[in-house]
């Protein structure tokens, strides 16, 4: 599952810094339920997201949607970073 490796531009959401923008490249988790949940809530590969906050939980914004997720779920979203500040 680490074919993308830990290269900076292709990392799980929980390794990114605040205010990073990126595109979802994969959604993977041991727990199929979590993947289904994310899919159902409208996350999908190719989606543009912004990481707004990392503590106490991850707050991400995709378009006009804002969702809070814990680290476990965040780690299942792989992102290609498109801008970092």
């Amino acid at each position: 599952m680490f074919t993308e490796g830990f290269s900076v531009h292709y990392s799980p959401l929980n390794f990114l810094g605040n205010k990073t923008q990126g595109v979802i490249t994969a959604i993977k988790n041991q727990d199929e339920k979590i993947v289904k949940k994310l899919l159902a809530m409208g996350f999908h590969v190719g989606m543009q997201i912004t990481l707004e906050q990392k503590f106490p939980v991850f707050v991400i914004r995709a378009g006009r949607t804002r969702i809070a997720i814990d680290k476990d779920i965040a780690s299942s979203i792989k992102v290609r970073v498109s801008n970092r500040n």
Partner: protein
Amino acid sequence: MDCHDCHKSCQPKPQNSVWKLLGFGSKKSAKSNFSRHSHTTIALVGSPNVGKSLLFNLLTGTYVTVSNYPGTTVEVAQGNRIIAGEKVTFFDTPGMYSLIPITEEEKVARDLIMNETLDLVIHVVDAKHLGRMLNLTLQLIEAELPVLLVVNMMDEAKKLGIWIDENQLANKLGIPVVTMAAAQKVGLKKLIAKVADYVQSTLLCVTY
């Protein structure tokens, strides 16, 4: 294991008419009550927090709790309204994101649409999140359920500069679409008219 049993056993007893007042559900289990109905039955479904309960209140005059957070409605509530001279029963459901349920309360909505023959499923979506929410619309269409799409929260969308072409959307999906702002009762008449069309057409089907 009793996750599965629970759903059935925890339907409030019929004597608890106070239930629907709380907004946590109807007094009767949808299951036992309307399997053999002669009148039109319509379910309101959709993601949490899109305005289903508010719309249900407007349509039926039966109060169920409306709140600005997901997870307020945990059971099916039921209420009636006379539309086109016919008694129409509406069901308010807990939120569901997709046909595959994750939590117990999502299962309630799915059970309703999977196990009962409904005359119409009104899918309520938030105009601000149209694309994301069309997911479920597509699934409902795929299931060949009779679907009507309500695009709600148009007031908030307008504030963000968003405009949605209702007719174009109806064409694309091949189902009736109504844009609304339930909080301001905008679009309610239009919705009722569309439902009336529907009621009349099903009546014709039955008669001939």
